[in-house]
């Protein structure tokens, strides 16, 4: 990865890391904006417990469906809970689902990709066929069916999303491994008598991981979206947990009768966060190889 060429005319301003950040931002504004959005959300998620004006799950039957304004910046929902507090708290939940899910996907997918790419043969064939078979389904239907059957637990949602992410990571890593397998440094590592696992994890992995890292942001975006969709359909995270999808689910009932705030605000938050993650992922992919848009879904 080539270094960002700093404009020679300017004197070196500020610490090196700042210059790198500016340099990267220049090359990929998408990445910069995405990262900025994400940092905002992360900050909100962290300080949410102290920032929220009301308890996000405090039901108040005497103040149901209040319009935005006054004590409730974004109004209250059908249970009398403050929408603004819930939207803030929802950020924490979004991270709480996306991060573990992506980790699960990496933990399952990367070793699979490494192994099948390196070894090839039977295992490779079978595993790739299974992944191809999974592509035949729209992933939302598959996720929905599994979570509906297994139960609306956070664990199930995270695991399902993670497992559905793993073929993507596996494919990306596998492609890298295939390219690297015949390179000289790998051959010399083999010749030196390294065991397979060492070759895979010490020699190949650091080079193969880049693609997966770039994909992580995109997969995180997908994780946030899918968990919201599952909650919207009533199959995922349940009320009164302040998950954005669950909020939109309740909001849907009131949207067409005029109490728009219940569903609109969580939707906007969801869009912004997913957009941030997508921009981050897009920018990362750009940086790594502007011409290679991973076709993997």
């Amino acid at each position, binding site marked *: 990865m080539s270094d960002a060429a700093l404009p020679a005319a300017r004197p070196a301003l500020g610490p090196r890391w700042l210059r790198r950040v500016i340099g990267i931002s220049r090359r990929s504004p998408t990445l910069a904006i995405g990262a900025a959005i994400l940092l905002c959300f992360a900050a909100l998620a962290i300080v949410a417990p102290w920032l929220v004006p009301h308890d996000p799950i405090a039901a108040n039957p005497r103040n149901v469906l209040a319009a935005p304004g006054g004590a409730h910046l974004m109004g209250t929902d059908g249970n009398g809970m403050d929408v603004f507090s819930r939207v803030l708290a929802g950020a924490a939940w979004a991270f709480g689902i996306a991060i573990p899910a992506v980790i699960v996907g990496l933990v399952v997918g990367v070793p699979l990709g490494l192994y099948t790419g390196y070894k090839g043969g039977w295992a490779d064939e079978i595993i790739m066929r299974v992944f191809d078979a999974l592509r035949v389904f729209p992933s939302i239907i598959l996720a929905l069916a599994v979570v509906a059957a297994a139960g*609306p637990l956070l664990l199930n949602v995270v695991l399902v999303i993670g497992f559905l992410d793993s073929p993507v990571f596996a494919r990306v890593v596998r492609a890298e491994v295939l390219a690297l397998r015949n390179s000289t440094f790998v051959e010399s590592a083999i010749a030196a008598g390294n065991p397979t696992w060492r070759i895979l994890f010490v020699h190949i992995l650091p080079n193969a991981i880049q693609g997966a890292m770039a994909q992580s942001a995109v997969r995180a975006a997908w994780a946030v979206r899918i968990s919201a969709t599952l909650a919207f359909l009533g199959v995922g995270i349940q009320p009164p947990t302040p998950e954005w999808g669950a909020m939109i689910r309740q909001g849907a009932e009131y949207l067409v009768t005029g109490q728009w705030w219940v569903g609109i605000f969580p939707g906007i938050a969801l869009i912004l966060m997913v957009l941030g993650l997508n921009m981050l992922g897009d920018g990362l992919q750009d940086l790594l190889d502007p011409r290679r848009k991973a076709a993997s879904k």
Partner: protein
Amino acid sequence: MALERRDLLLGTAALAAGSALSAPAVHAQGAGRTLILAAPGAPEGFDGDALRPGTQEVVVQCYEGLTRYGRVIRDGRPYLNPDVIEGHLAESWTTSPDGKTWVFRLRQGIRSPFGNELTAEDVEWSWAKSFAQRRTGAFIANVSNVTAVKALNRYDVEFTLSAPSMILLAALTLYVPGIYDSTEAKKHATADDPWALRWMETNTAGYGAYHVESVRAGEQAVIVANRNYFREQPHFQRVIYRAVPSAASRITLLRSGQVQWIHRPLLQQVAELRSAPRVKTEDSFGRTIASIRMNMGIAPFTDRRVRQAFNFAVDRQALIQGVFFGLAEPARSIVPPIVAGYDPSFFNYDYNPQRARQLLQEANFDFNQQIDILYSQIFNWEEPMSIQVASQLQQIGVRARATRITDSDMRARGAPARQDMPMFSFEDGPIVLDPVYSNFLLTHSRGVSNRARFANPQVDAAIDEARQSLDPARRIELMRTVQRIWMEEAPWIVTAYPTVWEAMAPNIVGWCPHPDDHERWYDLRVG
């Protein structure tokens, strides 16, 4: 404050929104007048014994009973008078001195849409069907102590009871066991379908005012007037029963004049609808109770103090405001206020969180255990109510949580054979306005709508005795006992009786509230 039952039956003020008749309320399509109605789903069958979504709404129009309630007019609106039962398909009846044999004389000349005349044979066949199916019809038979129905001659039919019953006449007003045109039904029976149930999934053959003409599964049903109906022809000759799953869409259609009737509009919209110029809303006192039930057989609800504590912990007024937008009456008895023998004097669970905590401590309640309130989407108040109650319980330190289960799970687990949910929400009410019926349904250990394994030997004994008693005073006294015991045992967190609302085009009049919450299209007309 003792509520006068009669006043409540006659309902709170019927709010007719006045002014502009801007929407033509009735569109004549084809011959005669048509009523277009929007409902959550299209009817999925017309066998009154096997209730499916949409069945009851249509079946009550097509199948009428041997008897009917009398009527009164108050403030220009018709109401049922549950103290008066008249003959309908039957013109008269006699009882044996011991009260165990009744003979009903049928009116002559009553014809079905297929042209067949009503005979005692039809009645016998119909009740045999219900007995054989062992479902809702059989339950009604059981509740009224009926053991056999036999045709004596062309127009006389004999009911044999195991014991005298004061419920029988009221039960005979119901749509189930339905009175079928057995001549027509038998044409569609087969060896392994002797009651023509398959045919009844898409057809009706009754002696009522209406008759199913066509069904487009999942979309709509078209119901037409029975041209051979024994009374005056209805105003609306055709009813289009249209499936519109979204409640908000239904209201929009009503406001724009594209439909003329919707049942049970969303409560959050009723306030708005009441002032909408192109919509008329009418209400009637509810006879179903929305509640959170506790299963006495499952810990920690085995201890009465826990159940009572939970009742003290709940702020009913807040619930009615937040969940029902104020459109419900607080519940003070398991017997609905509009039923004779209603006694609210045993209710003393006014909101008292300190007392609740005290009781829980006395009962050595484990505050660390997780209490799940199970709810479904069968009734749209279930989710908000469960969340609010969980929240109120949390305020006294109980780790309560609202948990959703599927609709089919909720029904299955509440069925008499299972009843294994510790705490859950549901709505039930009697369709016969009789206190013994109400209690047999809800508080008897064998009650079909018990769902929470409430079982108290004294209650059972009182109900069983009342079922056979012909002494009105004794019956009322026994039912008071039941209400007292039940309220002391506090197996449910009683909350509210939601008001029943109907929304219609502004120039439709004649709605008469019925105990089954279904309008009768026969009553409606443009006026």
